[in-house]
């Protein structure tokens, strides 16, 4: 018996050492998208979400990079007292938003959810998921293993994802061949401090000379239909929200392709799901935000449609107001109190969040 106990202890110790070694290999090989090296810090955003205390987030944002650069949880909190976490990622489609909402509900009980409609139209040709594979992997690699993740993986697989299912649970399977591409930075990042202070927001610092002209509602009944599959996921999000008593806000930020026909499609969806629509391409909403160009702009000089920090501040303040109007109540929370200083540093110094470690 004593022999068996000794061998069991040895076995456990061996497994622990092995797991430590594998964990280290994983930290080096699996790419991390953090403030220091990425425009959209997917890894920090997802890991940061899990670090929030349970049931402390009043509002969750689920959207594409437009909202990752556009809604600042710290500004929403400071202007309205409402705690907010921004779970927006590059190209995040309503399909991913649906699963992220389910994941959110495992840890938080938000009063409202803001969902971006940017990806409700198809941008990826025949690719059903409406996100490029590399992009949905970024948040998923940091997503905890759960039934939600399992359902998401199964769904991706059904829709033509080519990665091995197991690689979503053990990302080393997917990224081990990066050993050929490793650079000094991959090893250095082990020493970097993890930052979650911006809670999913990522600032863009630029100015743009050309102005944006929002459209005006003319009463046209023309509708540019949403992608049926993406619409289906929006409806599912609506179902969850109505079941859980969560206020749903659909949001769209200015972009070259958003006109009245698209707005009408958003409005129809909002009506169907009982959601509030905040379409910033429409003049009345745009003017409510009070954007002052060129210091505050939705467009990079190259035409890319992402808000700069100034526009994001105005948009977030406006959203804080909308949330209050919708009856979302805030509360004082140390998690948001503590991050204010970091936020102020970030607004003052464009290089601040890039600093290592």
């Amino acid at each position: 018996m004593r022999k068996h106990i000794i061998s069991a202890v040895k076995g456990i110790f061996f497994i622990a050492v092995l797991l430590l070694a594998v964990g280290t290999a994983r930290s080096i090989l699996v790419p991390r998208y953090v403030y220091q090296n990425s425009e959209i810090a997917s890894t920090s955003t997802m890991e940061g979400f899990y670090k929030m205390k349970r049931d402390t987030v009043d509002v969750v944002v689920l959207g594409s990079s437009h909202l990752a650069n556009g809604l600042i949880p710290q500004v929403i909190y400071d202007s309205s007292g409402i705690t907010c976490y921004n779970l927006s990622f590059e190209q995040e489609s309503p399909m991913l938003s649906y699963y992220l909402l389910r994941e959110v509900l495992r840890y938080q009980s938000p009063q409202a959810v803001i969902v971006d409609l940017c990806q409700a139209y198809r941008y990826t040709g025949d690719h059903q998921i409406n996100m490029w594979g590399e992009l949905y992997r970024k948040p998923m690699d940091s997503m905890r293993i759960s039934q939600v993740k399992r359902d998401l993986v199964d769904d991706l697989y059904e829709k033509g994802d080519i990665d091995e299912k197991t690689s979503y649970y053990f990302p080393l399977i997917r990224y081990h061949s990066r050993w050929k591409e490793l650079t000094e930075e991959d090893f250095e990042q082990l020493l970097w401090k993890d930052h979650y202070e911006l809670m999913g927001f990522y600032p863009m610092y630029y100015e743009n000379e050309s102005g944006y002209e929002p459209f005006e509602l003319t009463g046209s009944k023309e509708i540019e239909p949403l992608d049926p599959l993406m619409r289906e996921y929006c409806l599912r999000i609506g179902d969850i929200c109505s079941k859980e008593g969560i206020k749903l806000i659909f949001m769209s930020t200015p972009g070259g392709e958003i006109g009245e026909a698209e707005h009408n499609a958003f409005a129809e969806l909002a009506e169907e799901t009982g959601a509030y629509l905040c379409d910033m391409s429409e003049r009345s909403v745009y003017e409510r935000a009070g954007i002052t160009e060129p210091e505050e702009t939705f467009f990079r000089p190259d035409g890319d449609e992402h808000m700069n920090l100034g526009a994001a501040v105005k948009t977030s303040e406006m959203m804080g107001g909308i949330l209050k109007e919708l009856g979302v109540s805030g509360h004082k929370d140390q998690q948001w109190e503590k991050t204010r200083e970091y936020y102020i540093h970030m607004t003052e110094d464009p290089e601040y969040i890039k600093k290592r470690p």
Partner: protein
Amino acid sequence: MNYISISFYILLLLIIPVYYLLPLRHRWCALLAGSGVFYFFASGSLPACLCFLAMIMTGWAIGLLTGRLRSAGGRGWLISLMSLCTLIPLILFKLRGGADGTEGIFSEYKWLAPIGLSYFSLQMYSYLFDVGKGRIEPQRNPFRFILYMSFFPQVIQGPIPKYEELSPQLYEGNRYRSENIVSGMQLVVWGFFLKYMIADRADVVVSQIFEGYMDMTGAVILLGGVLYSIQLYADFLACVTISQGVAEFFGIKLRDNFAHPYFAPTVQDFWRRWHMSLSFWLRDYVYIPLGGNRKGKIRKYINLILTFLVSGFWHGGLALNFIFWGLLHAFYQVVGGLTIGLRNRVLKAVHISPSSVPVRLIRAGITCFLVMTAWIIFRAGTLADGLNMLLIMTGGITWTGLKELMPTILRMGAFMDPAEWYMLFISSGVLLIVSLIQSRRSLRELINGLWLPIRWAVYICAMLAVMIFGSYGHGFNAADFIYGGF
């Protein structure tokens, strides 16, 4: 589910504790249940599973009948006929492909073919043959017989066991020994190393060369032949090693299937070292029953040719490249047998000992070349492709071409990334060193004798090496075990 899937190891984690928690005499039940679950998921087809079960039960019934007939002094021809009946499904399955590689008769019923048919048919035949000869007693318990036939670590691709070797280990139950777990783990890790570091990485290059051989130079085809020889060995050895490792978790020792075949000085010796369980099966149940070498030289060579014809058929049915491959090996051995005297006389005349190191090295090199040549035919899509490749290879090799081959490939990153090439060289070097050590002493004993922290470091480094540098997952085509396809 297969031997390298995560689900297989999850299943294993369930079976092992159940096995050791059951009373000793009932432990075989855990193996039986595990074998059933594994076979069902590996097969993925209920009709094929039922077909497998029906074949086993037929074999069991014939075994009992054979035993009775033998003890009653029954007719030998009837016993032999009944044993041969168990090979009918295998023969029909092998006839599914036409000689030119097209779909042949019975191809539309291939969904009925149980996986591992090529292996367990031979296993069943050897059991019935031995029962018929009175070498073993028939198994009366049908469930125990099902376990013998379906023992999950080896059911898909061997090694083909002998009843008297495997059955006592299965039925009597084994006590828990931590050494068995460690030993099993060593073998499984080594198996994964062979599969992911060598076989699947070589496959990336081999597939490109064999599929586009018309545009390749002779030197590149030679490279393809060499790499395929390494790939096939590493792949098959990997599977058998993993099977042995998994069996050792239960304290069961499966027979070795390889004994460093590429160190063989002759083709005849090669077959004593390559896929030994099949070679010995062919010797015991085809060559010797045909008369072996007991009826003169001519009959011996005819028997040899027939045995290798059966081997070719077993590998590829009527596909001509497999038949030709079998006959080529028979040809090598006939010529080898006819010229051995002359060759030894020549060596004696020039005062060189046949057992000297240079002669042994040269002979091993020639044997490797002959075997590699045959592997090209074996791997080619059709016999015509195989012969064409040999034609290009023999007609197109120049010294400059050979000298410049690898530097050019590495410079251009041809076939795969240069880093992958280096990893293939390093891993093949490790295989060579391990083989050299193992041909003298047991490497595992050597490792077991190391100080614990060093031993663990070896294990962890090996596991990490496979996890990180292995050719699996994204960007690699997961290759099935080659011999599973036969």
